[in-house]
């Protein structure tokens, strides 16, 4: 295949055979209970230097409670899959946890811009859909996938994409390298103790993200019995064997929404966006991460019952979200 042009960015090594071997040797093929606390899950499955993917974002059915736990545990040198995101990357960079980002869309703001300028954070350019396509290639066990976008942009040379001559049509086509993150965190509506998981409503890339990643933590609003899955198997979004840890996280997406379960907390959203635009998350991190030892304590002391009741009350739409 003739390479016409190629991007020059550093990228996570593409190794489908290595990933197959990892799946055979390390993924939990047997149904075993994986229920554990946020603390244990992050301690066991998120490591310094990991490539970390998260699905959705801090405001929309994202693993916000796990993001806070990662910052609390002071992970270092993470490389982030920054797609479809407002504040999650900025939080992790300012929390001292991340120093590389593949960008589809992220909220910048002065702090993260400064980190880039000072060379403390490296960035590589893609689009949202190219990052989800990279995860799809990773989830298919393939080394790359073609796409018909992004060619000719200025992001191209700052990515690891290649423009090649398609051997079938002889036309130019873009290739994206597969992405198999070291770790993924995904927030879902329901999971059982083994890691079978359901997402209701639209999503970004929860299934691909789970299948493509070596170590996967699923946080769930509700823990349900396996019988629930067997009653309605078409609604299973993620199979148990892709998952390493299951964390019960009611209001895990706070201050964001979980469709059909609770609305966002606009005040909490504006508070985080304000910190992003001011370029200073120190107060935010102090209040929302370091002031408590666990998600349970966070809900109790920082969020409070009144707010949670209000968020549930404001989510009036149920159609499509109840099992």
């Amino acid at each position, binding site marked *: 295949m003739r390479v016409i042009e190629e991007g020059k960015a550093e990228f996570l090594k593409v190794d489908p055979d290595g990933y197959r071997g990892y799946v055979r040797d390390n993924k939990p093929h047997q149904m075993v209970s994986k229920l554990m606390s946020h603390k244990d899950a992050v301690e066991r499955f998120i490591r310094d230097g990991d490539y970390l993917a998260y699905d959705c974002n801090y405001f*929309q059915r994202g693993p916000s409670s796990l993001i806070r736990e990662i910052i609390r545990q002071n992970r270092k040198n993470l490389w982030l899959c920054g797609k479809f995101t407002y504040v999650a990357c900025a939080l992790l960079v300012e929390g001292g946890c991340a120093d590389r980002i593949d960008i589809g869309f992220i909220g*910048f703001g002065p702090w993260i811009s400064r980190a880039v300028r000072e060379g403390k954070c490296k960035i590589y350019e893609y689009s949202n859909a190219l990052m989800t396509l990279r995860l799809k290639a990773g989830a298919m066990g393939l080394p790359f996938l073609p796409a018909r976008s992004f060619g000719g942009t200025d992001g191209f040379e700052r990515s690891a994409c290649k423009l090649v001559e398609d051997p079938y049509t002889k036309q130019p086509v873009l290739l994206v390298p597969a992405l198999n993150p070291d770790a993924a965190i995904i927030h879902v509506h329901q999971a059982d103790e083994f890691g079978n998981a359901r997402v209701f409503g639209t999503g970004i890339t929860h299934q691909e993200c789970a299948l493509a990643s070596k170590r996967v933590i699923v946080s769930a609003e509700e823990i349900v019995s396996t019988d629930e899955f067997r009653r309605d198997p078409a609604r299973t979004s993620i199979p148990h064997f892709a998952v390493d840890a299951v964390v019960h996280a009611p209001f895990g997406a706070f201050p964001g929404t979980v469709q059909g379960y609770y609305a966002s907390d606009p005040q909490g959203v504006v508070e985080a966006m304000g910190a992003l635009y001011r370029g200073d998350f120190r107060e935010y991190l102090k209040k929302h991460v370091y002031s408590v030892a666990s998600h349970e304590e966070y809900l109790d002391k920082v969020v409070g019952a009144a707010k949670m009741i209000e968020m549930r009350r404001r989510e009036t739409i149920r159609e499509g979200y109840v099992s």
Partner: protein
Amino acid sequence: MSTPAEQFSEREFVICQIARLVEDQYIYWVGGGGEPLNSVLLAKRMTAPNLQYLTEDGVIGPEALVPFDPLMTMISSRANYRALQWGTMNYAADLAHLGYVDYGILNTLQVDRFGNVNSTVVGKYAGGEGRRFGGPGGADSIAALAWRTILITDQQKRKFVDRVDFISSPGFLDGPGARERHGLPPNTGPWRVYTPWARFGYDKNCQLTLEAIAPYVSVDQVLGEMSFKPVLAATVEVMEAPTDEELLILRTEIDVGGQVTDRGRWVELKDGKYQFAQQ
């Protein structure tokens, strides 16, 4: 009700113009919320009740319940209400690859004569020197894959430039044939550019062409707020003002809190002429 309004904001003007283009028989990919979504929602209530749109999270044909909470334009129950199908991001991109997306509608930070869009950096990229923005997000997929793309930008010199500082999402790149050479599907690309003051199209050489102006500005005013001179159509039309009915729907059903339209200048009809209100 369908009489021309006597007072409106220039933001409302843009939304009403785009809404008038939107038709039932096409599928639209709407970039985020703001003007693109409001245009489609207005069209749905005015002339195209059955039009379908999708957003980046793979929602197909929702009947969105506006207004949304801040930033909740996707992956939220109100944005995705009563859809025909719920998908994911790769699914949305698949549909666009397949050719189902007739039109994309995008708000842009900076746009150039070839319709290239910058949402990455204003100023220099190297060394992180320029002012950094979020990146292409979903706009690259829309700009590359929709059959026709409608771009929206402000009529300001710094936003309407000869060459964008960074091509985040492709327009015609550097002219005819460039998109195809870079692997983008043929017969696609920017189709119209709207600002609060003007409507532009493209000629066969992919050059931006001034086709119409708002009734409250002159051609010279429009050219004065561009960093380059566009091609002028043989006849530059004057667009019609929003109607009372459009504005009533926009203000009472769509942008109730003024989240989108409460910016920009106010226009009023005075002595039989539309002009900017004294503020």
